[in-house]
């Protein structure tokens, strides 16, 4: 277990903004996992007029993975579909994740990419 968590991790882990599976139609879903740590992430994206209208996530992982997923979800809304890639290293740096956690943050990037594959400009 990592010795310390940043204040941002603490806040995001406590609040879990945008967490949970959304209801209703029109969501593109992508999932990724990393077996060794058991990290598993599912992202839900909804598009409108060529942009991300909303993003939600589910995650089973360490506090850093949870915080990174929340942070990424908050940044996706409003982004053009052509520019959905999330920089895992930048996310890890922002939440001050230790280097050994980077692999888990990449799972979030992979889940977003997997969801983006199913996106059409006005919904999947």
């Amino acid at each position: 277990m990592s010795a310390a968590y940043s204040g941002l991790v603490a806040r995001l882990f406590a609040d879990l903004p945008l967490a949970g599976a959304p209801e209703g139609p029109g969501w593109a879903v992508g999932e990724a996992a990393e077996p060794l740590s058991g990290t598993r992430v599912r992202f839900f994206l909804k598009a409108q007029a060529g942009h991300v209208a909303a993003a939600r996530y589910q995650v089973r992982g360490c506090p850093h993975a949870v915080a990174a997923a929340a942070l990424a979800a908050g940044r996706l809304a409003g982004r053009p579909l052509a520019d959905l890639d999330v920089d895992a290293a930048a996310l890890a740096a922002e939440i001050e994740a230790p280097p050994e956690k980077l692999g888990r943050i990449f799972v979030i990037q992979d889940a977003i990419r997997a969801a983006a594959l199913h996106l059409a400009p006005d919904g999947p």
Partner: protein
Amino acid sequence: MSDFIYLDYAATTPPDPRVCVAMQAVLEGPPGNASSTHAAGRAARARVEAARAEVAALIGAPPASIVFTSGATEADNLAIQGAARGNAARGRHLVSLRTEHRAVLDPLARLEREGFAVTLLKPGRDGLIDPAAVGAALTSSTTLVSVMLVNNEIGVVQDIAAIAAECRRRGVLLHVDAAQAAGRVPLDVGALDADLVSLAAHKVHGPVGVGALYVRREPRPTLVPLSYGGGQEGGLRPGTLPVHQIVGMGAAYALAHAAQHDEPARLAALTERLWAALATLPNVHRNGHPTRRAPHILSVSFEGVDGEALVYALGDVALSTGAACGAGHGEPSYVLRALGRDDALASASLRFSVGRPTTTAEVDAVAARVRAAVLRLRALAPA
């Protein structure tokens, strides 16, 4: 009750106030090197020998069989490296378990790099090793078997006496890491029939930084010391004796000895109460044999959650994912993986361990907090 609850007594225990008083008396008293021949030195020596007798009494051993060390890790290293090198002319094969503490596995790995052959046996899914499997692993070149009495992660108690019988038949030395056992399970070296037994003080409400190795007197196993200079402790552990630490260990073992008939039952009642509350959650698994276990350790795997996230969510509850010594590596517990738990479940496991100060109110509060945290994290996870 404050929000902070400590349920990590398998990692370390707070020194008993009576231990602190005994140590303070040494620290504030006149100086004296226990090897000096003047009056102050002789007084220090008397304190050391009194503590040696207290440690020996708990394990049913003669005081002269106790060698003080810096802790159980050093005792494990002295036993394993010392016995392997001291008996290398007879053979260079060593046997142990995959579920041993790193203080055993790492010296074995070191010896392997020096050319010794090491066999690490896999226990059953209940964490117990069949003594016959140990016997079957012995060869004509085996010189040492090392098996812990109480597993530090899951708390199972190995059948050391039966393993000793297998070793005896083949003339093989037996080392037992008993760091988690003292004061929690019966620990009579005569009944165990072990040649070498490692002990710690800080697991039994004594100070960190001191431990001991029991070395059988007759027949006395050949050990090569890890260091040289001074000849203290029969030449096996040279260096000026830390009298205050040793006195603290003696006091802690005396207290454990006095409480050994009542305290284990009280600890067992606490862990069973905790398990009963946690078992009402769906998809939770108790790790290790259900009855052959030490009273103070409860290992539980929770499906669908991450162990680190669970510990974090519990806030001011101090407990471990796996062993404290292995936490921080970011990998699932090798002990639970050896028992057949998959990576996801092994990484979603908590070790609760209770101690002398633990109350039923604390156990109930932890159970409630764990239940709430598990349900919250499961709701967050993908189905």
